[in-house]
């Protein structure tokens, strides 16, 4: 059986490897939600392929908009695949740290309340 340290290292390496492969091999087709929006807006048929220029129209008013740090898991065109890899590594490690941090925070809170 793996000890905790090996499990964490192995888990993070597998996660980052999956993300690394994803940068090069992930499908660029829209996800189920975007596909549905394209079908409803008449840009694609239910079972047909998605035209390369298909784009979801933003039809609603009173919505919020926000510019994220690394939109679409990239650092922009000029960074190319390297930007994608950096984004995936940052995200994977951040997800790990956020959960560790929050778990410790709630545990610490639990201790001080006792």
């Amino acid at each position: 059986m793996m000890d905790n340290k090996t499990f964490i290292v192995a888990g993070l390496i597998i996660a980052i490897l999956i993300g690394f492969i994803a940068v090069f091999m992930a499908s660029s087709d829209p996800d189920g939600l975007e596909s549905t929006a394209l079908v409803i807006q008449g840009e694609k048929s239910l079972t047909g392929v998605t035209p390369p220029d298909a784009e979801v129209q933003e039809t609603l008013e009173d919505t919020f908009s926000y510019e994220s740090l690394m939109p679409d898991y990239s650092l922009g065109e000029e960074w190319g695949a390297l930007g994608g890899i950096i984004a995936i590594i940052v995200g994977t490690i951040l997800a790990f740290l956020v959960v560790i941090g929050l778990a410790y925070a709630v545990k610490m809170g639990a201790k001080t309340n006792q």
Partner: protein
Amino acid sequence: MHIPDAFIPIWQGAIYWIIALIFIALALRWAKNELNEEKLPLVAVLAAAIFAIQSFNLPVSMGTSGHLVGGALVAIILGSPFAAVFILTMVLIVQAVIFGDGGIVTLGANIINMGVIGGFVGFYTFKGLMAGTKSMPVSAFVAAWLACVIPALAASVELFLAGMFPLVEGMIAMGTYHALIGVIEGIITVAAIYLIMKARPDLVDQGVYSVKGAAPV
């Protein structure tokens, strides 16, 4: 099925946030009571792995792609739907804030769909099917498939209320695409359970091994 900010008006997003916060509070209570030094690495590694796997969009035909969400996987492995709420909330926050995947105002709705509905549907379907079939792969596959399809249908109702999708057309399209994407969810969930059972059998909830142990003690 991450709903972007442009798809839901702010006031409706606020309502989903309030509902989501109730479940987040319950998930934090779960973390406080259930997480110990032994389990913490698994929980954190699961969060990292789910983030990475979610970036891997696989083609599912019909001009559409999809990826694992992971609500059923987390709930089954850790033996509680609140584990899914806890981990998916954190993953969704990182995705929305840093990478603009899903929205900020719509984050509440996304947490409800993928964390809460995905976690509860996944956990209780698994528990029920384990009692009936005694087969982990069959139970986990069906649980994960439903934990992809039901949240997608919930999202289509939310987007109908938002004025974005017509109800029936939206549900048909969302249901069709996520019935395909759910197969990915099922396969990866079963494979990941096997993998974790092999690496650290002690960290996997007893419900995965036996029907009797499925009841929370």
